[in-house]
């Protein structure tokens, strides 16, 4: 087993061990923190696929995070008021079932990623950054003015949604759901990165010409990656909404996009566990520094600045050095 694989295992085991310890120590807040970290890690893994492998600096991933959240909020709010979403031409009722919500969240964010990606990927470089940012804002303003679902104030869901056989209101059981999703997403992307598709995507980041010259269309690679990436981040949004039992336009805000990017970079861009470490460190900083000072974002900013300027490759890069080639 390579050093990186050992590191990955230890990291994931720690993320599981802390809430289990907290469960027996009766520290539900710690479990909630770990759940938050795991959800952010999922969102980061989604972004890392386009950012790390595809070299596409999307500053609009909040769009998908928010869509996932609103998919949950809309379905659950209709279920809680017993008002169908639509009666004609077909009857669509709200639902409190997590699996159904996840499917809707994945579909909604996937379709949005397909449309946004198809348009944004016509451009490159700095245009791409600004366009993805602008699409995020477009959804943000839409959510702000969509008064049917709370507009600016957001929307509360009184009870967490249901999962067959589990009591989702028990923090450790909800953590379990999120943790299983994290494992699924992590294994899926780790496999994807090594697959022919992952190899081609990674090569398209390093040399577009090379990929074109062997007859592979880089646009198709990037669009596919963008859709998968958007769906994963959308799933994270649905889970995040369920964790808080609350949605608001801030899920769509550009700060959310920036924070998802911070998880990836803090941990280590293009490293398969970078987003997990980044999210864990982010939550830990938020918890400890936030306890010391109301203005902890100053320290977060300073840390981020130091990592970008002096520790390229993020924390994993510092700990493990450069990734081994040809594993």
């Amino acid at each position: 087993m390579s050093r990186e694989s050992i590191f990955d295992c230890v990291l994931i085991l720690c993320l599981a061990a802390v809430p289990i310890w907290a469960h027996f120590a009766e520290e539900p807040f710690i479990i909630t923190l770990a759940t938050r970290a795991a959800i952010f890690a999922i969102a980061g893994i989604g972004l890392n696929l386009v950012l790390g492998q595809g070299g596409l600096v999307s500053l609009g991933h909040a769009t998908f995070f928010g869509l996932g959240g609103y998919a949950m909020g809309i379905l659950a709010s209709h279920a809680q008021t017993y008002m169908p979403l639509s009666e004609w031409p077909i009857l669509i009722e709200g639902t409190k079932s997590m699996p159904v919500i996840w499917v809707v969240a994945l579909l909604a964010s996937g379709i949005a990623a397909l449309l946004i990606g198809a348009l944004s990927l016509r451009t490159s470089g700095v245009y791409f950054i600004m366009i993805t940012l602008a699409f995020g804002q477009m959804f943000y303003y839409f959510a702000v003015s969509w008064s049917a679902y709370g507009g600016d104030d957001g929307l509360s869901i009184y009870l967490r949604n249901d999962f067959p056989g589990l009591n989702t209101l028990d923090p450790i059981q909800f953590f379990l759901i999120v943790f299983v999703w994290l494992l699924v997403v992590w294994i899926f992307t780790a496999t994807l990165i090594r697959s022919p598709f992952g190899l081609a995507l990674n090569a398209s980041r390093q040399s577009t010409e090379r990929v074109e010259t062997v007859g592979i269309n880089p646009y198709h690679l990037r669009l596919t990656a963008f859709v998968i990436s958007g769906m994963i981040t959308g799933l994270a949004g649905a889970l995040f909404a369920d964790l808080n039992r609350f949605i608001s336009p801030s899920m769509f805000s550009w700060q959310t996009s920036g924070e998802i990017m911070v998880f990836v970079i803090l941990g280590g861009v293009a490293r398969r566990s970078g987003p997990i470490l980044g999210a864990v460190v982010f939550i830990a900083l938020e918890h400890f520094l936030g306890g010391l000072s109301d203005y902890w974002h100053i320290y977060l900013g300073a840390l981020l600045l130091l990592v970008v300027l002096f520790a390229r490759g993020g924390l994993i890069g510092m700990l493990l050095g450069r990734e081994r080639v040809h594993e």
Partner: protein
Amino acid sequence: MPYLLIAEQLLNGLQFGVMLFLMAAGLTLVFGVMGLINLAHGSLFMVGAFSAAWVSGVSGSFTFGLIAALAASAAAGALMEVVVIRRLYKRDHLDQVLATFALILIFSEGTRWVFGSFPLYLNIPEALSGSVTLPGGIRYSLYRLTLIVVGLLIALGLYFLIAHTRLGVQVRAGESDREMIAALGVDISKLYTIVFALGAALAGLAGALVGAIQSVQVGMGEPVLILAFVVIVIGGIGSIKGAFVGALLVGLTDTLGGLFLPPFFELFMDASAAASAGSSLASMSIYILMAVVLIVKPTGLFGAKG
């Protein structure tokens, strides 16, 4: 629809547009000359607004406030450039985005720490309060009219600066060929600091001027920054002319969208639903405009590079 209302909204759109231009001009210059994407440009807008509000509050003079805004934002810009930004010119866009995102966190929280979370207010100067009657019987705020005039004058001045001065020659040379200006013996790092500080001063000025018609608070810079991005994407990155045209288009789309879209939707839905859908669409219309421009010209109206 009453013609006076339309005229007033047109002027509002123009006013919004020229202020956006002040923001976009700095961004597009910095990108054109140094190849840098600066998210923290919105923080300089905020620095300008806070300096103006605080100094004019203490001194009682709007003019002192404006001078303070220019000085503080230019100084903050120069400092930012020397300490952080110049390490980023050779980095990729991702590093630039992250480092300048980090700067936003530091500037925003720093400002909150100094001034608190409550908004400050900047009063319109006595001499410019009230309204004037324009030809055609349009009554319009004198202050907003002044903003339009000031914005247009600065646009003209900037055009003159780029087209006819030594600095402008260096800037244009820097856009087309970085090695060339080094070969000509221009001190590049000084040129970069000057261009950056100039962009910062324009952003700070915009912040101070707009600060008098909205509240001055932490986070005010970023919505404007994102609109300025839309402006330069529409206009073409690196082009001052593009920034000007883009800014006016965005300004007018924003205000006219808010005016025309809700009544349009009333044609086929009830009034309250139309007001809600129409206002959503009005705030989205700018991004739809951008999408349309990009479908037609992926590098913007006047842009060449990507």
